[in-house]
């Protein structure tokens, strides 16, 4: 359970919120710049990759949290939730890929894979916690 009195968890939340803010800002910049045709050529590639920077940064933040968390049980819970989310994301994306290839499933934009992963983390966390009650 997330607790703001835990310094590692507090730092993690603040860092994740900052990264999410930058991800949102960069995504909006990419949409405004590229989709509305203000930017083209090489700068458009730079703008397109920009939202991926805070996305990659959240993985660094997660790694930092795992090394800063002194409560080994909480660390263990979070690792289990992340592993569950990785498994669920890979399973869904793989299944969806086959459905796209061999069925009539609509195309899944790769940009949705990352939010999907965090949704699975959010779903997995209370389920993992329940095992220890």
């Amino acid at each position, binding site marked *: 359970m997330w607790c703001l009195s835990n310094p590692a968890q507090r730092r993690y939340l603040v860092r994740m919120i900052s990264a999410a803010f930058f991800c949102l800002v960069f995504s909006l910049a990419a949409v405004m710049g590229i989709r509305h045709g203000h930017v083209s050529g090489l700068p458009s590639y730079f703008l397109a990759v920009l939202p991926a920077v805070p996305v990659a940064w959240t993985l660094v933040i997660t790694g930092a949290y795992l090394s800063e968390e002194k409560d080994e049980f*909480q660390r263990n819970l979070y690792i289990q939730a992340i592993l569950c989310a990785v498994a669920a994301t890979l399973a869904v994306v793989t299944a969806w890929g086959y459905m796209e290839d061999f069925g009539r499933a609509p195309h899944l934009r790769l940009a949705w894979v990352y939010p999907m992963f965090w949704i699975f983390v959010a779903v997995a966390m209370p389920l993992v916690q329940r095992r220890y009650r």
Partner: protein
Amino acid sequence: MKNRLRVLRAERAWSQADLAKALEVSRQSVNAIETGKFDPSLPLAFKLARLFGLRIEEIFTDEG
């Protein structure tokens, strides 16, 4: 791994929250260790032993 944590804690009239504070872990951690659902690492087991003034094997017993 079985342990006598609940008994030792009750003898000292400590709540799970008291023990968690002394160990610098969450109350959920203490509960998970007490119920035998989570085995602590060696450093945490030593910390527990020091706190109760006992040896590790006086708190934890191997089921095997």
